[in-house]
């Protein structure tokens, strides 16, 4: 550690990178399964970003001469009924899953935070009305609500994200509202108000930083659900429209007859989807235990 002249005299704050790596090592030691899950997630992000480089073939190009081939060195996962390379489709499917999962998570979290914070802080009639909307959204079976929204919006990747985020925002907002009501009771909020802070300022500077851990935990525990929901919608034909490769779409009902000839069409996307959901759930659990012990065992 050779550091030049002046810097030696002043004790330096550890660099940002050093602090992050200490945090990561501590997380890995306390939550080994969580850390393993995080590693798999990094791998998944890598696959999604470099899908074009990793996939040996185009995921959407038909090649009727090579349909329903078993896994081989040419086609690692075999081909589907249109002769499309299944490995390339599963790799590109990771991109769709991740894109939808992250998009819905961030969209839902942003809207839920605003809705929950305002509703919880203001209370009164506004809160009452918002909560009845949350009640109604929770009474609807998720798929029924999502399909109903997608009928109006026409299926596309962006609209799937919007529908998932809309439903997610309503249900997450209730948890955030609860956290805000808890914080509102603390004397420092009264103190801020006594000093003349405006409502937006109190929400942004005093409430928001305090509910941040709750928001992060909610985001990490909900992402797996969005990925499954997208796959279910695409499976039923109301999600990402073909030929865009989505894991749910690859397993869709129309392909079932071909799966009897070539079951790999079902097996590989199922493994990919289940692995990602498993890893997301494990990572979310680990993060929850680490950040907010009170929520432990709530799922």
């Amino acid at each position: 550690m050779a550091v030049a002249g002046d810097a030696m005299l002043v004790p330096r704050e550890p660099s940002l990178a050093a602090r992050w790596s200490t945090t990561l090592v501590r997380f890995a030691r306390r939550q080994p399964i969580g850390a393993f899950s995080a590693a798999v997630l990094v791998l998944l992000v890598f696959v999604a970003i470099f899908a074009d480089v990793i996939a040996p073939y185009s995921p959407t190009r038909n090649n009727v001469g090579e349909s329903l081939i078993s896994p081989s060195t040419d086609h690692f996962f075999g081909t589907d009924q249109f002769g499309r390379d299944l490995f390339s489709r599963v790799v590109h499917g990771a991109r769709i899953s991740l894109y939808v999962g992250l998009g819905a998570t961030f969209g839902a979290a942003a809207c839920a935070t605003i809705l929950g914070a305002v509703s919880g802080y203001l209370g009164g009639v506004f809160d009452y009305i918002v909560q009845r909307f949350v009640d109604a959204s929770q009474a609807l079976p998720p798929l029924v609500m999502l399909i109903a929204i997608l009928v109006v919006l026409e299926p596309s990747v962006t609209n799937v994200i919007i529908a998932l985020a809309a439903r997610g925002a309503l249900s997450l907002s209730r948890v955030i509202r609860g956290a805000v009501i808890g914080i509102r009771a603390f004397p420092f909020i009264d103190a801020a108000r006594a000093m003349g802070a405006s409502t937006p300022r109190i929400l942004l500077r005093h409430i928001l930083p305090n509910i941040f851990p709750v928001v992060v935990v909610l985001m990490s525990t909900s992402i797996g659900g969005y990925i499954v929901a997208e796959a279910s919608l695409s499976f039923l034909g109301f999600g990402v429209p073909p030929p865009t490769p989505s894991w749910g779409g690859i397993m869709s009902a129309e392909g079932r007859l071909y799966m009897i000839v070539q079951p790999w069409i079902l097996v590989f996307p199922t493994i990919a989807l289940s692995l990602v959901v498993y890893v997301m759930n494990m990572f979310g659990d680990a993060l929850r235990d680490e950040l907010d012990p009170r929520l432990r065992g709530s799922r």
Partner: protein
Amino acid sequence: MRNYIIARLLAIIPTTMVLILFVVVLIRLLPGDAIDVLLEEQVRLDDVSRAELEARLGLDKSLPEEFVRYTLGTLRGDLGNSIFTEEPVTGLIRQRIGVTLTMGVMALVIGATTGVVIGIISAVRRNSLLDYFLRSVSIAGLSIPNFAIATAVIVFPTIWWKWSPPVIYTPPGDGIWPYIAQFFTPAIILGLSLSASLMRLTRTMMLEVLRQDYITTARSKGVREGTVVMRHALRNALIPVVSLLGIQVAFLLSGTVILESIFSLPGLGRTLIGSLTARDYPVVQGLTVVSGLLVIMVNLMVDVSYGVLDPRTRAE
């Protein structure tokens, strides 16, 4: 207790109103050319004028008017008519709801009993090999989506034994046993994820309760271990499990949409998919309202059952 039930009943009203508002607004959000698409695509609408079709969709009235009309209709048990057959939606639902309810109740019973029983075993034999095994299986059950399992259950037996679970519907008229039997496979698949999440919560809650002083007291009084677990611990551990069950009912109904489609069972879920493909919007509206009401009713029952499980709520 009576006041508690009345208060819960009154709370249903605003939620149901929002539900109806949702389906009424939904129709109005349809893209502008949706009516043209319907008139062009559907041969069955050849004799129908544009104004007539708009009237059938309730688009000839203002939003508040249509909301009031739909609400009053719902109260009378009238959810409008199909735009194609002009058959009442309520009649259609009455024909199809049996399938969904049978499958849903079977899944609920299978999922709840296995989930709770496995949760108790896992908690009592904590950190044993059996506990690790049961927990791993339940996490796997949570991670593999039900449509993948259902497809696999049809595809693999066909490949291996040239046999697959029947995907032809047997009406109840053909005998009650064949009718019930056809729901076993989909109900078990549907109950699987419910069972997994209930198992995890039951285990956590049982471990929590078994640590309490009154359990030690019961044991030191010489109460048999089985009685301690079943009477003293389980009853207290079950309260949050029952409320999770209420939340899961919405997800269970979601699952029936998928499983009815895969196993070709003519319930509400498959009707929903069918009417969406045909763009029969009033049927979609009616099914949405009814599935929401089903969940609301089940949650009402869950809340009332707290009173039975936990005498403290009765006093409040």
